[in-house]
């Protein structure tokens, strides 16, 4: 309980410890703490920024997908229209072709008819002449009535 030299000893010990703490303990630890605090703050800010970016990117992606969808729809529409067009074109081509062939066939048929008619005419006149010959053989001479017969054949 007496006051003695221990007091001085303790004061000296304290000065030494405090000095050591001030020089070698406090600064590095506090530096580390402050550095970490900074890092954490930076990390939080970065995370927030990343979050923002993510939201923006998501919106952007959605926009792009929307655009793509619209484009796809328009392309589809165009393709449909084109297909319809092609079909219509084909149809009209077909119709035209059919008409062309029809007219060609008609013309041919006409020609054939005419030809047949011509032939028929010849044959009929020949038959008529032959039958008339047979009838007239007994009464008239060929040579006497030749001009009449020619006129007849022409008329037929």
């Amino acid at each position, binding site marked *: 309980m007496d006051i003695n030299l*221990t007091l001085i000893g303790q004061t000296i010990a304290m000065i030494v410890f405090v000095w050591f703490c001030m020089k070698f303990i406090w600064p590095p630890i506090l530096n580390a703490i402050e550095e970490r605090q900074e890092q954490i703050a930076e990390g939080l800010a970065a995370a927030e920024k990343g979050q923002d970016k993510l939201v923006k990117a998501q919106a952007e992606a959605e926009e792009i997908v929307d655009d793509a969808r619209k484009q796809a729809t328009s392309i589809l529409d165009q393709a449909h229209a084109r297909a319809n067009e092609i079909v219509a074109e084909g149809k009209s081509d077909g119709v035209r072709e059919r008409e062309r062939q029809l007219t060609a066939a008609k013309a041919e048929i006409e020609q054939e008819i005419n030809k047949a008619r011509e032939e028929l005419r010849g044959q009929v006149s020949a038959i008529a002449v032959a039958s008339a010959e047979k009838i007239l053989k007994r009464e008239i001479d060929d040579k006497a009535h030749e001009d009449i017969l020619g006129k007849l054949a022409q008329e037929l």
Partner: protein
Amino acid sequence: MASEGGHGPQTSGDYISHHLQNLQVCKSETGEWVWNHCAGNPMAINVDSMFWSVFLGLLFIFMFRSVAKKTSAGKPGKLQAFVEIVVDFVDGSVKDTFHGKSNLIAPLALTLFVWIFFMNLMDLVPVDWIPLLSTLVGIEYMKVVPTTDVNITFGMSIAVFILIIFYTIKFKGVGGFIGELTLHPIAPPTKGLGLIAAPFVIAFNFILESVALLAKPVSLSLRLFGNMFAGELIFILIALLGLWQLPLHFGWAVFHVLIVTLQAFIFMMLTIVYLSLAADRRN
């Protein structure tokens, strides 16, 4: 323990006073170094207090230095996290109270807090363990709680007292220090007939302020000493109770954990407050 025979203490009174006796060494009148016959000798040294105090101070130094060396801003280890919590706590306390700029106050507060906490914590070591062990190796007295030695607490509070004066002079000048001692709390009259009264007012202020100034280190050290001494004494008394000491010891130890921490914190906090008052120009 009280009924132990042989060299040990015999009665309860002997037991208690044995536990409260420091291991002392001093130079006797004949010029020889003697142990334990130093009552009243101002040149004696309490070897046990000094040893445990320095040992625990070194424990603090090594523990915190090992962390400080390895410290990095990355992911901290467990010890580093603990040390950083303590440092951050002390730093927060200092920043809340002390608004000037000082490289000394925060490390001082940290050292005081952890060191005193360690010294107080020795109180939780059962009172007989270390004294018995030291008796076995031939050391008669061993008081293991340095803060139950008034020399230790005064040693620290005197260092704080010197720092208070140093800070007052550093921040306010010698004139400011003298003015603080003499011009408060009653401002001396500066003109007219009142001038005659001025010396008396100054003398009155000086007495009042000197007492206030001196009361700071005295109260600081006696508060810590009183609390720890009383706690230690109660542990010793409980140890006298035979089997009943077990639950009582446990209860008091649990309660004492609070005192141990609180007293370390109060010592640190008051040191910061005193120094910030010393450095505050507005006062």
